């Protein structure tokens, strides 16, 4: 397994390079905000190092972290679908290095190069499905006191 971001891991090199022509390096300081709930989802990131927390704002309480993302993982998919608005907030837990991709250009590339677009969307769908599965399992509260746990 290479150290490529998972989204691009199995993408043919030609397509990967075409995508990367659109990307720029972008770093965030610890505590930095990548986006807020409801903001315009006009970009996404592939994390190179560091950790980003996805949170939900709850009045009267600290922002509730629902999941964190780290190296090789993709941050953001709200840019894929209208109305292109973030559903959660994202904050850097430590200094974070990323490749940042502009959403509009990537969507245009996908439209122009449908083969690349299909491959990219397949991978996005797989990542979304994977996170949905993980979320469902977390709903089970696997490690709860009454749970079935090897002793």
């Amino acid at each position, binding site marked *: *397994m290479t*150290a490529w971001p*998972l989204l691009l891991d199995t993408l043919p090199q030609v397509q990967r390079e075409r995508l990367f022509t659109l990307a720029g390096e972008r770093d965030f300081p610890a505590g930095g905000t990548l986006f807020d709930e409801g903001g315009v989802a006009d970009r996404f990131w592939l994390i190179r190092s560091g*950790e980003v*927390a996805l949170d939900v704002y709850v009045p009267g309480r*600290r922002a509730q*972290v*629902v*999941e*964190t*993302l*780290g*190296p*090789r*993982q993709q941050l953001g998919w709200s840019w894929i679908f209208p109305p292109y608005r973030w559903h959660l907030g994202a904050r850097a*837990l*430590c200094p974070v290095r990323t490749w940042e991709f502009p959403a509009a250009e990537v969507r245009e590339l996908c439209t122009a190069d449908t083969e690349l677009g299909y491959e990219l969307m397949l991978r996005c769908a797989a990542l979304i499905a994977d996170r949905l*599965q*993980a*979320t469902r*399992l*977390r709903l*089970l*509260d*696997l*490690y*709860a*006191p*009454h*749970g*079935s*746990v*090897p*002793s």
Partner: protein
Amino acid sequence: MTTVPVPYRVTAASAETADCVSLEVTPVGQALPGFTPGRFAMVYAFGVGEVPISVSAIGGGHRLVHTVRAIGAVTGALCRLRAGDAVGLRGPYGVGWDLDAAAGSDVLVVAGGIGLAPLRPVVRHVLGHPGHYGRLRVLIGTRAPEDLLYREELAHWRRAAAQVEVTVDRPGPGWRGSVGLVTTLLDRVDTRPDRTTALVCGPEVMIRHTARALLARGLPAHRIQVSLERNMRCGTGHCGHCQLGPLLLCRDGPVVGYHRTRSLLAVREL
């Protein structure tokens, strides 16, 4: 006589979390030889009953540590024991982690909740044999930061060059680490599927999900070892309770290759 417990004395009882206690036990007289990482003992709480517990440490002087979670009458009684109290032990039973099979390869430990307990001696063994194994990675999923076992020891493992990643389901205030299912940590580590042995223990749902994620990353099923749980009364393969299809888990397990259990775990109520 493997049906009769041997007296041991609790020489240290330390609370790991709100409901987990590590009991260090030492034989009063005759010791039970032969414990290896992943094997288990039937631990007897006087007058209450017996439960199967994997060893969470194998020390010198025949000392053993069992990390027990209070979830029933017997485990509750064991968790109330203090240094100086008496327990009975039978064992060792079952098949432990196949560390010979992991020799020369990277070792990927994936633990969920108290599933870290039977894996702790593996980590200690690997760290104690530098050069025998490739890179050591320890991925731990737990419910909340306060449920994390062996916190101080994890720091020691990190200093000893193991990559240790922890993720929780429910971060409290002040938690600066990862949040999410333990499999999310697999994305973060650079696994070499052709030269990695994975050792997985936790709730069965977590084991199935983790094993699938490992297969998806290219690990062959026979390089994935899982530790499974079923009701056990005897430990000696005679009571019939711990059957999982063709397996008697007290005898053929609790550690079994995923290639032998994959289809069995998919059958409901097997």
